[in-house]
């Protein structure tokens, strides 16, 4: 049973559920990427540093926004 459970792709299912429930997330992702790129490029000058910082900012922005959306969804679920 446990090996079977281990094969279920939980993360993609969670992501698909989230995207289905909040369609705006799909169109918000390019904006997160844009904001990360601009934040990184206005803090650095070297192209390699800009690329690294873009990923860094994207993780932070995506994480913070994801937490906010998750909190809103949970509150809406219990309301």
């Amino acid at each position, binding site marked *: 049973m446990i090996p079977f459970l281990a094969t279920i792709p939980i993360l993609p299912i969670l992501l698909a559920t989230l995207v289905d429930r909040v*369609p*705006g997330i799909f*169109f918000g992702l*390019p*904006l997160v990427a*844009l*904001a990360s*790129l*601009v*934040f990184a*490029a*206005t*803090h*650095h*000058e*070297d*192209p390699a*540093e*800009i690329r690294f910082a873009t990923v860094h900012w994207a993780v932070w922005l995506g994480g913070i926004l994801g937490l906010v959306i998750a909190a809103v969804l949970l509150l809406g679920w219990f309301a």
Partner: protein
Amino acid sequence: MALARDKTPAPRIVAVSPDDGSAIDLRNPALAAALAWAVPGLGHLYQGRVFKGRLFMGAILGTFLAGMWLGGGKVVYASWKPGDTRWAFVCQAGAGIVTLPAVVQALQLHGVAKQPLLGSMFMAPPLVAGQYVSRGYADRLASADPDIDAEDFFDRPPLRQFRGEQVSHWQRRLGRWFDIGTLYTMLAGMLNILVIYDAWAGPLGTPTDADRKSRTTPKT
């Protein structure tokens, strides 16, 4: 005796790169900032910072144009009439001269002409209830806009008076795309403010003493 001309070169205005501590020649920072507003990334190209200039130009203009496309070309307009004050335009204006047609169209529509420039609907503000427009523009709207027909205007010679709210037609027709397009164009404009600052004063990050020390101290 002839006075010796002062041949001291003008001081260069430079910023410090936070990555390697090198100097970044800002040339004329005010001009660079103005160019960065006019066309995102142009200020950086003027300063010789080609990589960042192309990056900003592509990213910000691309997002702005994507927003225009998603919003059916209706999301960027200037309006300051009571009941339809377009606050989003304050953010969109940060994207530069691409938003100037909206100001021109608004001035034309609210001015003596009572119609946008050349009767074009491009970036023209939506009509509000009771607004007077020229006969030519009313006829053009009735023929080109699927949500408007001749019965939507009162005849007030030599003008016509609109009866409805054009922005609600747009929102009904476009649905969520109106808001998404508005968001894309607003964000493009707001992020260009950071780009303008970068052109004026260099990168926001400044190397700390620890950064400088880690670069100069050999790792054991």
